[in-house]
Structure formats: C-alpha cells, structure tokens
C-alpha cells in the first residue's frame, strides 16, 4: 500500500524551477510513485491536494515554508527518498555545463574574435564553402578535408594570394604554427627552422628529425598534396616561402614535397634562390642538379633534410652575397668544354626553363640549329659540327668571337657566359683575344653582362692571375667552378615569381583557432594551450539541396 511522507523546511525559499527539478529527481527514485516539492502557498497546497499529495503535516505549513512530499510503495522507500533531498539538490549531471559549441563559423568567430585560423575537416563537398566563409572573414585556412575539386582549390588559393591568407590544403594533414600543431603534428621545440611542405608525413618526419637532432621549428606550413601540380603552381608554397623569408625568427628554410611538376620546381627554385636564407630542398624523387647551389641545399631524403637544416641552423649558415637583383634577358653560354657545358646545363635547367642546347638531356630542349641560339641557350662549340675544318675552340677563339658578336647584337640577350680552359695544349693567351671583345661589346651594350668560367691552376703556362684580371678589367665576372657559375647565373637570370598579391602578415601569438569538424583537432588545440572554439558543424539546411541552393543564391 502506498505511503505518503512529507517534510517541512520552514523559511527555506527556492525558486520554483529548482523545486520542479528536485521533484523530477525524486519521482525517478526507486519505489517512489509521485512527489511534490513546493513553497507551501495556498495555491500550491491545492495543487498537492488535487494530486493526493497533501498530508496533515503539509496542511499546516506556511507559505514561506518549503514542503516536500513523497508518495512511495512503502514507508522505507518514502523515507529513503526524503533522506536524499539534499544530495539531489546539489547534484549536477556531468553531461551538462559544457563549454559552448558553436553551430556556425560566424557564431564561433563572435565568441573568439581573435581567431586567425580555421581548421576545416567537414566532408569534401561542403569544405570549399566553409573555407570560403572563413576567408571572407579574413582567416587563414587549414583544410584537412579531401575530395575538394581542383577548381575550388585554385579559386580559393587565388583569393588567398589576393588577401594575404594561407590556404593550407585541401588534404593538408600537418602544420605547426607558433609552436601549436594543427591536425597531425609532433610536439617539437620552437626554433629557427621554418618549413613549407606539400606532404604531411614529410613535414612530420622532418620536424621530428629536427627536434631529435637538437634543432627547433619556427613554423611548419602545410600546402596540401596538389599544391605543386602545374595547375596550382605552388601557390601556397610560394606564399609560405615568402612568409619564412620575411620572418625574423626563421634562419633556415626547408621545402618538402613529393616530386613536383618540372616547371613548378623551376619556379620554386628560382624564388628560393633569392630567399636570402639557406633553403633545404627535399623534393623526394627529384634529381638535384648538385648537392648545393648557392643558398640551396638539396637533401637526399627526409632524414638528410633534417640533418642539413639543423647543421645550417647551428653552423651559422652563410649565404652568397652575389645573388644580386636579377636582370632581364637570355643566357647565351658559349662553351669550349663539352662536359663543362653539360654540367652547367644540368644545373641551370633547374632554374631556367627551357634552356636549349646542342648537348641537351631533354628532347624538348634540343637546339633546332646549333648555329642559331634560341631563348636561353648553352652551346658546346667543341661539337663536330663546329670543328670540321678548323681547330678546337680551346685553341682557336675565332668561332667564339664571331658567335659572341652575334649574341651581343641580339637585343634579347642579357648575359653571355664563356668558359676559359687554361693548361697545356690550350690557347697561349685566351684573354688577349676574348677580353677586348668583351670590353667592346660591353661598351656597345651597356646592360649586357659577361661571365667567364676560368678553369686552370696557378702553375698553368697562361698565368692564371693575369688571365683573371684581364677578364675582370674587361668587365666580366670571373668564376672558378661550375657550381659557382650555376649559382651565380641562376641568381642573375632566374627572377623567381614577382611577389603577387598581399603578403601574409605575421601570425599573431598566442594562436587562436576555430575548428570546424573533427573534434579531436579541437581537443588537441586546447591540450596545447591554444585558444580554440569548436563548431558543431552540420550540412547546410540539413542537406536539403533545394533549400541549400536558395540559401546560396541569397548569399551573393
């Protein structure tokens, strides 16, 4: 049989909502049939009476008293319920009281106005729209989502360039910004090595390697795997490179990628050549022209890249000052030595594209006619076609003098490169014939530059010092090795890309980010001490295409 028990707490006031909550908790207890928790006003007593909850004790209560009534299966259950009142009033469910989860990027941005970054990991078909919204509100984008179309990627990245915003991705897994890992990232110490990578695991392997070797990371900027395809043209990597170049905290730069498209690699290297900082290039699967050219260091793999970067960072990297502002015009390399021509070509074609030659390694770079230069040309004048019926150009300068004349008169030519090979058997005094010609052409064509690659020793019969000084007096730059020559010529002629659009402004500290999608990214941001907001994202209009398309029209 049911038992009704009550308790009066004189003068204890609680808001009715608190009391209703308590009542609900009491009813949920074992054996309890019904309960009433009220301030004992006449109206409330009437309510209790209607529900058969009014006890004799209750009737006597005053309007200022708290009245608790429990009707249960048996006396024990009723008493047990009353005994729990205090505890129930204190109880808080663990699922409630959580920090606010925004439903939209705009909502999150209002709550975290300092957020400069948006991490996006929504399904691919929606990702571009979310990224667009983020960029419209002036935020950098870390776009983890994949299945974003190439057109969307190009469109987003073009805007990024115009607005000075980074679009890292799509399909970007890793970045470290101001010491905070975005997406998948290792915890590494901060330092002076900055990275830009089209490969997430590549960035992870190298940043981890740097840390393990005692170095540290300034920034690791991801680009997404397609950034170095011809269509995207390294848009983000070039932005990242420019950022690190300007970043006073970055001393050494590392570029990481799977094999880039050839022309993209060329543009990147051209630009990197002017970075004014050592750049470690880790294009996995790319055949480097040399271990190092100027400020560029080509890594054999990711471990090697980490090692090189740390060495350069610790060793006080020196950067050749000869990488002066580039000039306009074509290169004409007039070589007497075949191997010198080939090696120079190999090095320069990483920066200049195309470089035509009669000793070309790529079919598309073969000179149509060895007697006529086209665009950038490196010609080996020791080839049979030139030496029929005359002496080899190492002994006879006549052919080179005539070709030099032709090249100098070509208005499109900016730099003429000659090799001068000294030693036994060679011409007794090449400078005597070549230097005056250089001087004459320089006088006639003010902007034309000459480089002489002089190969020889101080014991050679021609007198090395006199040769060098004769060429220098004539106005030529004299260099002593192919590597130096490639580095110099690449810097003079490879303009890199003119810095388009808006430069990316220095990232604010501390990092503040909005995460749209995968919750673990948000949790990881919080765990690293970054300010972060989670957006509880859902497809627009619940995935209703008709409504979504109307909404899209209304946005424009």
């Amino acid at each position, binding site marked *: 049989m049911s038992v009704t028990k009550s308790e009066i707490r004189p003068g204890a006031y609680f808001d009715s909502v608190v009391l209703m909550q308590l009542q*609900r908790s009491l009813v949920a207890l074992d054996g309890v049939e019904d309960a009433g928790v009220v301030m004992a006003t006449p109206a409330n007593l009437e309510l209790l009476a209607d529900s058969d*909850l009014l006890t004799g004790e209750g009737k006597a209560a005053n309007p200022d008293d708290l009245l608790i009534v429990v009707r249960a299966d048996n006396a024990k259950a009723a008493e047990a319920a009353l005994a729990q009142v205090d505890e129930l009033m204190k109880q808080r469910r663990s699922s*409630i009281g959580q920090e*606010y989860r925004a439903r939209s990027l705009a909502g999150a941005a209002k709550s975290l106005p300092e957020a400069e970054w948006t991490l996006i990991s929504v399904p691919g078909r929606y990702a571009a729209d979310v990224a667009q919204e983020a960029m419209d509100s002036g935020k950098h984008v870390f776009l983890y989502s994949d299945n974003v179309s190439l057109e969307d990627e190009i469109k987003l990245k073009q805007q990024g360039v115009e607005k000075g915003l980074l679009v890292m991705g799509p399909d970007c897994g890793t970045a470290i910004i101001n010491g905070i890992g975005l997406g998948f990232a290792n915890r590494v110490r901060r330092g002076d090595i900055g990275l830009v990578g089209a490969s997430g695991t590549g960035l992870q392997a190298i940043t981890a390697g740097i840390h393990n070797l005692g170095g540290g990371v300034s920034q690791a900027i991801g680009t997404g795997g397609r950034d170095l395809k011809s269509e995207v043209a390294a848009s983000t990597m070039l932005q990242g490179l420019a950022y690190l170049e300007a970043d006073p905290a970055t001393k050494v730069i590392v570029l990481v990628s799977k094999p880039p498209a050839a022309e993209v690699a060329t543009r990147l290297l051209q630009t990197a050549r002017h970075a004014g900082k050592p750049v470690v290039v880790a294009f996995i699967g790319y055949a480097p022209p040399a271990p190092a050219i100027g400020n560029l260091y080509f890594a054999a793999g990711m471990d090697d890249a980490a090692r090189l970067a740390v060495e350069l960072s610790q060793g006080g990297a020196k950067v050749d000052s000869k990488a002066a502002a580039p000039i306009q015009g074509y290169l004409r390399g007039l070589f007497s030595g075949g191997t010198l021509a080939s090696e120079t070509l190999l090095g320069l074609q990483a920066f200049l594209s195309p470089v035509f030659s009669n000793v070309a390694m790529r079919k598309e770079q073969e000179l149509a006619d060895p007697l006529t230069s086209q665009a950038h040309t490196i010609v080996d004048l020791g080839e049979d076609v030139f030496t029929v019926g005359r002496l080899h150009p190492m002994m006879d300068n006549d052919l080179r003098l005539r070709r030099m004349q032709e090249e100098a008169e070509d208005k499109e030519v900016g730099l003429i490169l000659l090799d001068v090979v000294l030693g036994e058997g060679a011409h007794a005094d090449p400078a005597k014939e070549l230097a005056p010609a250089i001087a004459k052409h320089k006088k006639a064509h003010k902007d034309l530059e000459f480089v002489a690659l002089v190969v020889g020793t101080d014991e050679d019969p021609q007198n090395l010092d006199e040769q060098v000084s004769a060429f220098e007096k004539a106005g030529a730059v004299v260099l002593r090795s192919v590597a130096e020559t490639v580095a110099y010529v690449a810097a003079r002629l490879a303009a890199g890309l003119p810095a388009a659009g808006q430069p990316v402004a220095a990232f604010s500290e501390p990092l503040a980010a909005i995460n749209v999608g995968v919750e673990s990214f948000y949790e990881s941001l919080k765990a690293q001490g970054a300010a972060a907001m989670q957006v509880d994202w859902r497809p*627009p*209009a619940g995935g209703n295409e008709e409504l979504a398309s109307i909404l899209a029209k209304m946005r424009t």
Partner: protein
Amino acid sequence: MADIQQANQQAVERMMEARPILKGVAVAKDVIPGMKDNLIMHAGPPIEWERMSGPMRGAVIGGLICEGLAKDAKSAEAMVKAGEVEFAPCHHHQSVGPMAGVTTASMMVYILENETHGNQAYSNLNEGYGKVLRYGAYSDEVITKLKWMNDVMGPMLAAALEGSDGIDIRALLSESLHMGDEGHNRNKAGSILYTAKLAPLIARVAKDEAEEAEVLKFLGDNALSVLNPVMAACKAMADAAHGVEGSTVVTTMARNGTDFGIRVSGLDDAWFTAPVEQPDGLYFPGYTSEDASGDIGDSTITETAGIGGYAMATAPAIVQFVSGTAQDALNATLEMYEITVAEHSHFTIPNLEFRGTPTGTDIRKVVELGLLPRINTGIAHKEAGVGQVGAGLVRPPMKIFEDALLAYAKKYDL
C-alpha cells in the same frame, strides 16, 4: 534583388530603436483597430473553433461569458457553432495576449506607443496565477477575478497613467534584465519595478484605500504583472521592423495551441504555420508531459524582440529550464547569436560582458544551421479550465522556416 544584409540591418535597427511607452489602459473596443462586440481575438496564427486546443476553447467560452454574450459553456459553444462569433489573431489587430490570448471587446487593455516610429500595440491585463482564463479556465472565480480586473483595477490603472508621462517599458526591461529576468518566463524583477512605478501614480488617483491596497497587492504579488505590457512593447518593436522589403527577419512568432506561426518582415502579412511541438519542461506536482497542451501563446513575441529564451544567460535563477547550470544558460544565449542579425543596443547581459541580447531572427540562418529559436514558455493543461501545469523550453517546427524561405525565393524570384 534587394540587398538582404542591408534590409535586415534596417529591420533590426527599427526593432531596437523602437521605444514603446505604456501610455494608458482603455476598453479594447475603444482603442484597438477593428475590435467589435462579437470578435474574439486569440493568440497565435488564425484558427477555427474545430481545430482549437482545449485551453483555447476554454478561454473562448470564458471570454464569451465574461463579455456577457453567453451564460455558460453550453450556450457559448452553441453561439460559436452558430457562427455568431468571429475569431481573429491578436496579431491582426496590433495586439498580443499570453497563452490563449483571448481578448474581447469590453476588456481593459494596455496601450503601448512606440515613440520612435509612432505605432501602437495592445495587450490585455495579467490575471496572475492559479485558475485563469489564459489557460482556458472559466469557472465562476475566474470570471469574478476578470470582472474585478475590468471594473476596479483597469480603471484605476487608466486613471493613474492618464496623469503621467507613461512608463518606458524598454528602459524597464533594460533594468529588469540586469536583475535576473529574461522577460518571458521570469518577470519577477520587472513586475516589482513596474509596481514601484505605478504605486505613486495610483496613490494619486485612488479614491478608496481598500481598493488601492487590493490593486497594489495584486500587482506586487503577481510576478507576471509586467508580462503583458512587456509583450505589447515587444509587439510594438516587432511591428516597427515589419514590412522592410527584402528582409528575412522574423517579426512574429506565435502559437495558438494547435499551430505555430511566424511572419517575416519582407514577406508581407503571410503566416507560415505548422503543428506546434510539445514543450520540454518541468511540471507542477501531480502533472506530467501527458497532461500538457500543445505550445500556446503570443508571449513568443519576447523572443521575437530579442529577450525571453534568447536572453537566458541573464536569468540564472531559472537555469533549471536548460538543465541546471549557469553555463548552459550562457550556451542558450550564445546559440541564439548564431541565428540572429544583431546584438541589442538596449538589452544587455552583464555576465556576457554586456553583450546585447541576440536580436532579429534570420530565417536564412535558422534553415542553414538547422538551429531553431529557443522559447521559454509556460505549459497549459490540455483540458480547458485546469490551468498551468509547468514551464519549460520549446522550439518552433522547422517546417515554417523552410516554408518561409521557399516563399521568399518565390516572391523575390530566386
């Protein structure tokens, strides 16, 4: 196409700059445009007798009895069925009423005037708790109380206000929101402020001390005294925002116990309606959700104007409605920022660093985010005459926002 952003900005500016002043109390028929003897105004979108919920029917019966048109429930029903009674939403007559919202020709009503834009709005007088007409009760005690309100309190308020500059309800709300009210389910502080402002005015005009004491006690004891002037004030604000070409801002949200209806600033006077949802609430002793009527009342005009459920963060005393913690109350308001156009320039929330309340619901954002307005509400018993059984939270049906969006696309040729 109209610039939606700009239109919405204009609509919401008008809503926030509207300054409704309580100017007086008068007989409905004398002041409400289109009011007539056999007209019963009710809450929510239009509805016919056959589809009315229990409490709405009860209130209609009570209204007819109170008006002297019927002597009991039976004759009242007969009148309705004979087509002798006309029905219209309060909203069609610049008015609002809580719960059933039943307002008849001879009832005393509050007159609110928006000093900024010049429009008026009206609401009936609040009956307090217990058995009341607005929950569909029509017993003798209900009718007796209504008569007292009409014969004693109403005229006294009318006289008191007549000799005054009126009461600035927007200013009162700004203050009560800093005192734990959210303006819909909790109006405790506002009602005390309201009584305090009225008391000297009443004292000046009251002829009978006993009546004066009775009226002041009624106003002071009733934590909902100010609800009706607040609702009419919100109506005046929302009406000021209505009719802005191209705007997607909601200017009406109202329930009649059967349907939930909205109207949109840039969509003329079209209603978009769908069956109401059941409130999720806490119940008075002896009642459960089984007893609850469908969502009912014009009081959602408060959320429409940026307070009520939208201002939950500022009402910590009633956080139990949102599961019990102050954080959840904050979250409720933060959520509403996502579907609104502006932060109110006059209604601010101290514990959100005085951010304005989320104001001006944008149907686009509701549909896009799948995020519905949060409405704080009282819960009526489903049967006529029982009264309030609880209070809680309810959301409108999503369909009405989707329909409004489709209508917008049609009207504006998208």
